[in-house]
């Protein structure tokens, strides 16, 4: 155990976490240059492209230190986005130390702070590492100042590197050995292992990633998941190399995997404690939380014939993403689909993109919604995340919506516009302080629903990319909610219904009507598009009918030609959704979902 170091790298997005991980892997010789692919740990295409880590990964690095001894350095990679902060916290709980990576040019950002707080909560050894010192715009002295002033860390403890150029890597490896404490734990105690990730393997089922705190686990043991209260027989345990490396056992202090015939990742909860069924530990490891989705939207195939394909893809996707939930949903307008829950908008984006890319599907999403809370007059409590289930307004006693505490860091010159944005987004209880001269941290309490609707993009463009953003869910607060329906020729298009704050309803209604007007092609009759709350029309637009389309001649041979033309048009019409007698193209639905700023 003395020779084990469990650590993680934490950083703001794009500060070079994956590149540093790659360097560490290369330097310790786990793989040679030939098999090396940039950003080894980001295995999904989408992770490489977006430059963010979506799923945690772990790898054991054998390292011969300057003291002549060989250490096992377990690097536990963490997801790099606010949507996944719980997963990050479980990864950190499995470590004794972290490398806190800071971009030499950008300095401390919102997620740097958020991640630091997480690490401090777990009482971890923190090694500040200034990355990208090769950049012309690097300002190492300023960052050292920030480490002191903004992070409250001893600035003398920092290391410098350029992960891209491979400089400073040895010092980092040495610091891990010297400064990160070895794990504590008693191999003879009852087993207590923390699940920090689970991945699906089509041959072996779920591969559980865990950190053993006490005890040992080996093949043929019967293990128990303490929260899920389920029992499995261990088939295999091992360490992480570039692929799985089978071992006889995992014992206290080690990081590794367990395969135990668990069919789906959904049967495993991140943060749950694994113990032995016959000799359980007294109590589970602390910090477990059930991950609950906060953003909801329905997924529909563009062509209703593709429903079975979407069903299969969603099911397969779910195997590897426990945080994603779904159930059958059906829309009058869009047919059969699925109501899905996501950890946040990025998660939603990722799921949509992966379904389209990996399963070659064309899907559309309904307007994303948060989960609202209603107390009905008869005293029942109701959570509603789907406008289709909005209770009758007559029965509602109280309505509440989830609030977040948003934390934003930016150069102070952007403060004015960002504050206006936050106020527009119904932000309250603002708090502001200068973390260093010229830089402020601004916090607001805001409805989550405002943040999922085009907040982030506007914030980013407003701060020209220098602003960073992080949030925590805080509580539910009373809100004046209404259900906004969109009607096309008097018929409700349920997939476009939204639950909105009363003050927002008119603007949203007008926007939806205008967008639909632009996207729906003219048809044989006038089309009225209306936004309505209850029976009251709050916005409208009209698409005039086309009035002349007939070809003058239709004789003998023209009939075949004309029919072929109509057959083609008919096919095109099939790709549209019929609302009553109006054909609505996919682009119209997408346009309504787009944020204000896209137009």
């Amino acid at each position, binding site marked *: 155990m003395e020779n084990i170091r469990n650590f993680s790298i934490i950083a703001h997005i794009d500060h070079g976490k994956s590149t540093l991980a790659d360097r560490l892997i290369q330097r310790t010789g786990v793989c040679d240059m030939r098999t090396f692919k940039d950003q080894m740990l980001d295995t999904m295409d989408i992770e490489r492209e977006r430059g963010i880590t979506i799923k945690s990964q772990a790898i054991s690095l054998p390292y011969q230190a300057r003291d002549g001894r060989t250490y096992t350095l377990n690097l536990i990679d963490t997801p790099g986005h606010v949507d996944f902060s719980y997963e990050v916290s479980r990864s950190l709980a499995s470590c004794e130390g972290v490398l806190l990576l800071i971009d030499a040019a950008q300095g401390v950002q919102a997620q740097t702070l958020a991640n630091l707080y997480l690490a401090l909560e777990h009482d971890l050894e923190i090694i500040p590492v200034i990355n990208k010192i090769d950049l012309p715009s690097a300002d190492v002295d300023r960052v050292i100042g920030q480490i002191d002033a903004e992070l409250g860390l001893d600035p003398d403890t920092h290391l410098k590197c350029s992960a891209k150029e491979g400089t400073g890597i040895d010092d980092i490896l040495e610091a891990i050995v010297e400064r990160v404490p070895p794990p504590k734990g008693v191999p003879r105690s009852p087993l207590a292992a923390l699940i920090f990730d689970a991945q699906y393997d089509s041959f072996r089922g779920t591969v559980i990633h865990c950190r053993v705190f006490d005890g040992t686990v080996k093949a043929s043991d019967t293990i128990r998941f303490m929260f899920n209260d389920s029992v499995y027989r261990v088939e295999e345990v091992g360490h992480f190399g570039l692929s799985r490396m089978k071992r006889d056992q995992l014992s206290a202090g080690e990081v590794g995997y367990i395969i135990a015939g668990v069919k789906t990742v959904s049967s495993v909860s991140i943060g749950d404690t694994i113990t032995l069924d016959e000799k359980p530990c007294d109590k589970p490891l602390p910090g477990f939380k059930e991950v609950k989705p906060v953003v909801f939207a329905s997924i529909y195939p563009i062509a209703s014939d593709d429903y079975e394909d979407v069903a299969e893809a969603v099911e397969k996707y779910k195997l590897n993403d426990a945080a994603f939930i779904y159930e059958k949903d059906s829309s009058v307008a869009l047919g059969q689909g699925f109501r899905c829950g996501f950890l946040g908008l990025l998660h939603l984006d990722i799921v949509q993109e992966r379904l389209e890319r990996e399963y070659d599907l064309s899907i559309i999403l309904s307007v994303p919604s948060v989960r609202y809370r209603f107390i009905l007059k008869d005293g029942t409590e109701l959570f509603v995340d789907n406008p289709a289930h909005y209770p009758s307004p007559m029965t509602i006693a109280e309505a509440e919506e989830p609030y977040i505490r948003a934390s934003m860091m930016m150069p102070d010159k952007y403060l004015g516009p960002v504050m206006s944005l936050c106020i527009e987004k119904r932000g309250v209880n603002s708090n502001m302080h200068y973390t260093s001269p010229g830089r402020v941290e601004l916090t607001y309490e805001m409805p989550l629903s405002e943040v999922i609707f085009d907040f982030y993009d506007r914030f980013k463009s407003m701060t020209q990319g220098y602003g960073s953003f992080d949030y925590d869910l805080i509580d539910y607060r009373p809100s004046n909610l209404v259900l906004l329906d969109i009607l096309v020729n008097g018929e409700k298009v349920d997939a476009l219904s939204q639950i909105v704050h009363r003050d927002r309803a008119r603007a949203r209604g007008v926007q939806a009507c205008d967008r639909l007007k632009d996207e729906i092609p003219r048809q044989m009759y006038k089309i009225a598009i209306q936004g309505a709350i209850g029976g009251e029309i709050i916005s409208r637009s009209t698409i005039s009918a086309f009035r002349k389309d*007939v070809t003058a001649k239709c004789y003998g041979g023209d009939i075949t030609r004309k029919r072929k033309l109509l057959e083609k048009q008919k096919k095109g019409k099939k790709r549209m959704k019929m609302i009553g007698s109006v054909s609505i193209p996919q682009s119209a639905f997408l346009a309504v979902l787009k944020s204000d700023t896209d137009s």
Partner: protein
Amino acid sequence: MTARETTTAGLYLHIPFCKTRCAYCDFFSVTDTDLIDAFVRALLREMVAYSEEFREFDTVYIGGGTPSLLSLRQVEMILERVHRVFSILPGAEVTMEINPADWGREHLSMARELGINRISIGVQSFDDRELSLLGRRHSRKQAVRTLKDAAAAGFDNLSLDLMYGLPGQSCHQWEASLVQALDFGPTHLSCYELEIKGLTPLGRRIERGELPLRTEDDQRAFFMRTSEFLEDSGFVHYEISNFAKGMDRASRHNQKYWDHTPYLGIGPSAHSFREVRRWWNHASVTAYVRDLDAGKRPVSGMEELSTEQLVLEALFLGLRTKGGIDLGRFRCRYGCNLMEEKGPELEELCRAGLIEIEGEIIRPTRSGMAVADSLALL
């Protein structure tokens, strides 16, 4: 006022020759008149090839191209062969299209003696500037004379082709043309909206911006005005582009195309239809003559229509005509109960004032006719 019920087939003879090509035309036609003799021989031969399949007709239509480029002798040979190979029922409608530049009084009288009882004259316009814009080779004066000659020759079933929506033409000018046409007492008018095709001289001029393109609102105004004006003048607007002084003056031949009645098309590029099959000849005089010389039918393509295709055709063809769609007949013929399958859609069209449902008949209104191509997509 329903379309005449008939299941007797129609015979179409296509004469693909034109002296010059009109500026708007993208149909198949041949300007090399040297080929006419060989073509006529082949045409006579082709009829014989169908003597078993088609026995009798009650309409004959000699169309083009420009059939009046044939000599009277050639027309005589053709009609003689028609009568020898097939049985032409008593009272049959025998139509021939003529260009006002070609035939005089004498020709017309002779044609009448040959059994032609309906003449369709390609007048297009009574304005010389418009005629030259269209690239027609006749003048207003020639048109007027031909109309008089036709009446004098005893043709009491007389049809005029006119075109509207010409670049620069005002609705007023068009009405003036219509008034002049009515002076000659035609029993039938075909009024075609000028459709601009990209690869025609006119299409290219519009593409280059030399001539204005009509807006949809303009097109509609012309269409509606034409219909109003002619219906007020006692014509029945029985098909998108066709008007008749009473339904007994409607073109019996053309109606066969619109209700899936069989027809045999003889000549290059002509189409034929029978039961569920449609086939068409080579759109090339040389290929056409070559096949017939070799003792083969000059067929270049064939299709068998599925029920779904038949239904689609019946819909879009039926909704082009005032006779409309007879639900009972539709059910019998295509096994499709329209009211059951498309009830709400039909009601919506009804509400929008595009169709009328009277008992078993669905017919387009005037506004409906203007968008008839889309009606069928319900």
